[in-house]
């Protein structure tokens, strides 16, 4: 019974994946959106950066990068704290 359910789920997933693969845009021809066109046209004038990706990462979507930096900060803090706590615990026991 479990195998049958698994097989059905697998077929459904495969159908979704195949349909998604067939419906995807052709390479190099994405569906245009207003935001893409706006950023491509105005990024160099507004931010002065030749790399449009950098202007998106640090200027248009700077808040995302702030969150990314916070994640890194938290990860580093967690690693340093955890490894130290382990040491102290071994010493005391």
């Amino acid at each position: 019974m479990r195998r049958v359910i698994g097989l059905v789920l697998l077929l459904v997933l495969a159908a979704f994946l195949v349909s998604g693969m067939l419906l995807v845009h052709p390479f190099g021809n994405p569906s245009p959106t207003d935001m893409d066109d706006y950023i491509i046209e105005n990024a160099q004038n507004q931010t002065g950066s030749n790399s449009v990706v950098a202007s998106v990462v640090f200027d248009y979507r700077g808040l995302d990068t702030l969150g990314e930096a916070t994640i890194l900060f938290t990860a580093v803090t967690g690693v340093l704290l955890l490894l130290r706590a382990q040491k102290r615990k071994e010493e005391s026991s």
Partner: protein
Amino acid sequence: MLSKIVRTVANQLVLFILIFGLYVIAHGHLTPGGGFQGGAVVVSGVVMLLVAFSSHDLKKSLRERVLTIMESTGALIFAILGFAGLGTVFFYNFLVGSPIFGRVPPTGPGPGDFWTGGFIPLMNFAVGLKVIAGLSAVVLAIALFARGEEMEE
């Protein structure tokens, strides 16, 4: 600690890795790359030193306090730059048109001028500082933990 050949080659190679990483950070607003990527390149040099030499030797030059201060400075510069343009909007690029990194390149493909980009190069430096210090501290702490040691203050 590995053999003398490996140690010598690592000693020579780490300079080039550092220069390449700093290049990627400094040219983040002109070429692919930026603070995160260049910082990761620099940290790969640190990892090479960790493999070639022992973490016991490296912990004397990479002290925890220095790395912590470096990372906090990077985060602080980033947040301050984000808040500095708050008169218009959060993360407003207020340096465009100013004498510091203020030039505006012509629209379209071009060779790129280093003195452009507004606060994006400064952001890249801040993030690069943060990534270098943070990932170095993590890698060194894990390597020292495997030996049962602890980072020096």
